[in-house]
């Protein structure tokens, strides 16, 4: 008697191949907590952005801003008042209704004095948030803010409910197409489809995120088909093998990750622009892209994404020219070079790129002592402690060149003229004027040689051949599974 169901199941799986309704996606880093409104880690958004949490607006996979929980909005002529009308019938995963009160709560919480939001700057221009009626919110700004709708699309600006806000770090409650189910720390996070979703329901019944940071383990997991997709595959050298294997597809997309050789602008000798310029000219970007990333990446000459319409190609300012570099060092009084530190976090763009850069710097007389650091150590000692001469890191937030306006940011630039451009940009809404200001800003940091601008990080995704609907590009750090399905 017991044989029958087993045989039936066997026949079913062998014959009709049941449509797959679950997916296992691997990413490199595990989120430290599950509340994007109270944590800086990009991995939080990787797992939860759009899947579990939604904001008033959101990023589409091509980087454009599309409506999220706000259906439509009106902007007053002076650019100071945004009236959002919210979608009807949206509920949080705990069953409570999402309405204007929740929006007011979320925005006020994010900009409040005791807010732990990692991107408080996004909310700085907000003056008041008023509830007009349950489905209408009016946000008044203290000054016009050209990219306010863009700011509201960030993972840090998602809408949460007062009933659940305090426990989001371990029990995320959002409005998205997936509900959080389980978090086995150190291993995986499981999501299930939200049957009460307001929009197009997810194709998948369940989704599992696994965390694999070791490149060798990542390769093995994909090859053995333990995971269905790996977003941000850590070993670019293995991609040709996957491309040659008909079981897999390889997608290489853009990210917002400007990979830079950061220089400590307040620490001698990097407080001297000639030294910074010498470093910039000592670097051969293409050999770093080829050697460290096996060809993945676009050279950049400033801190701005090359696929953005306002990008100016300034790579000529810092062309590879070791002779000029030596000359500049001599002019700066370092004819015999100098010694400094090069602190490297774990990703291969930093570890491998660092070895290449150290060798290129040695060629012009600069001895960069490599020190490999784990992320925690890097954040503590290099990023917060500012104890470094040089370091390599990729800045993956979209449109993040405003970090150059912060004199306390780890590379410590914050030139008053640059801050002035940023203030003006924030107050400008006309697209042409904004583009011009963004280009001025790009030129200023390139001409000041604030950092060595290396390349725009590309993100490789390896997936089984019949997975469809994954994001190609990463306009924000996210693995949006709401549109993902299986071809068969």
């Amino acid at each position: 008697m017991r044989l029958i169901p087993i045989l039936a199941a066997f026949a079913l799986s062998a014959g009709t191949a049941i449509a797959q309704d679950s997916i296992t996606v691997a990413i490199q880093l595990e989120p430290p907590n599950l509340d994007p409104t109270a944590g800086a880690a990009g991995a939080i958004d990787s797992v939860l952005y759009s899947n579990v949490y939604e904001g008033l607006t959101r990023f589409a996979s091509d980087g454009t801003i599309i409506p999220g929980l706000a259906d439509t909005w009106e902007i007053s002529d002076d650019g100071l008042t945004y009236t959002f009308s919210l979608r009807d019938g949206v509920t949080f995963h705990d069953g409570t209704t999402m309405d204007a009160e929740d929006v007011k709560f979320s925005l006020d919480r994010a900009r409040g004095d005791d807010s732990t939001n990692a991107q408080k700057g996004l909310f700085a221009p907000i003056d008041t948030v008023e509830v007009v009626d349950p489905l209408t919110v009016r946000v008044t700004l203290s000054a016009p803010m050209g990219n306010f709708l863009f700011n509201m699309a960030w993972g840090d600006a998602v809408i949460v409910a007062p009933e659940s806000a305090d426990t989001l770090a371990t029990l995320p409650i959002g409005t998205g197409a997936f509900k959080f189910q389980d978090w086995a720390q150190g291993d995986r996070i499981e999501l299930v489809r939200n049957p009460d979703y307001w929009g197009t329901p997810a194709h998948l019944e369940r989704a599992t995120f696994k965390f694999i940071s070791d490149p060798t383990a990542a390769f093995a997991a994909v090859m053995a088909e333990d995971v269905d997709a790996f977003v941000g595959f850590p070993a670019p050298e293995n991609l040709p093998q996957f491309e040659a294997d008909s079981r897999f597809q390889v997608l290489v997309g853009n990210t917002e990750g400007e990979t830079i050789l950061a220089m400590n602008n307040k620490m001698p000798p990097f407080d001297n622009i000639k030294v910074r310029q010498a470093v910039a000219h000592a670097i051969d970007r293409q050999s770093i892209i080829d050697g460290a990333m096996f060809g993945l990446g676009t050279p950049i000459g400033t801190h701005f994404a090359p696929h953005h319409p306002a990008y100016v190609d300034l790579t000529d300012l810092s062309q590879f020219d070791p002779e000029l570099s030596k000359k500049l060092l001599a002019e700066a009084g370092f004819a015999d070079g100098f010694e400094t530190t090069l602190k490297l976090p774990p990703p291969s763009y930093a570890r491998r790129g660092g070895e290449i850069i150290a060798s290129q710097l040695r060629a012009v007389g600069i001895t960069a002592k490599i020190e490999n650091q784990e992320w925690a150590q890097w954040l503590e000692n290099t990023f917060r402690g500012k104890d470094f001469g040089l370091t390599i890191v990729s800045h993956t937030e979209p449109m993040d060149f405003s970090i150059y306006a912060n004199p306390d940011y780890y590379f410590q630039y914050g030139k008053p003229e640059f801050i002035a451009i940023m203030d003006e940009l924030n107050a400008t809404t006309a697209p042409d004027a904004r583009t011009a200001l963004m280009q001025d800003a790009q030129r200023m940091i390139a001409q000041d040689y604030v950092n060595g601008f290396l390349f725009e990080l590309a993100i490789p995704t390896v997936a089984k051949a019949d997975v469809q609907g994954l994001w190609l590009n990463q306009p924000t750090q996210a693995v949006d599974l709401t549109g993902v399905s299986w071809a068969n």
Partner: protein
Amino acid sequence: MRNLILGAALTTVFVLAALISFIFTPYDIAALDIPNKLQQPSAQHWFGTDHFGRDIFSMIMVGARTSIAVAVLAVGIGMGLGIPLGLTAAARRGGWLDEIIMRGNDLVFAFPALVIAILITAVFGASAVNAIIAIGIFNIPVFARLSRGAALGLWSRDFILSARVAGKSSARISVEHILPNIGNLMIVQGTIQFSLGILAEAGLSYVGLGAQPPTPSWGRMLADAQTLVSIAPHLALFPGMAIILTVLGLNLMGDGLRDWLDPRLRVLRA
């Protein structure tokens, strides 16, 4: 005898490679040559090139230097501190100093060596110097215990007794009479510890806690080769073989030396 010759030959090859690397390597290992990366072994590059286009043969030569330097110094620390401790303990056998020294040794022995070495380098920063200290510390009790054991046996011998009757202090007896008689034993043990030191250095470098780049190290070459093993196996093969052959050579040499230096076996041979 055959072991001794084979072991000595292997060891000599690597020591020579390390010494020659100071004045000559086929290619400059500091210069990266990205366009020529991951080349298969050929007449130009005997062992091929690595992921930065560096000549692997040259890297193995310079890597031998790192391995040997770390192992020699670590064994040096072990011998330099361990043997005096062991001799002191033997001279004060049964006394409180003996107890303190030997229980201290037991304490160090109780820790898994490589794990503590990882701890030391993680706390004080990864570098070849810290690797030497970490490996060296764990060599101390090995030599202390061995020298104490061997010395204890000698202290009851007649020639020591006559030295004592002659009024020599126990420190002098230890240095003038005990030490020369346990020298062989220490040399044999030193060879074995030397091979363990090479393995420990490779292990620490493999996890990124040994010599830092650009200083080549066999262990880090293996770690770098890890994700490339399926496309360029020679990256892992050659440093792996270098470690195996060096350790094998040292162990064979240690074995051979023991046979050769052992007085009882020497009598048999005669």
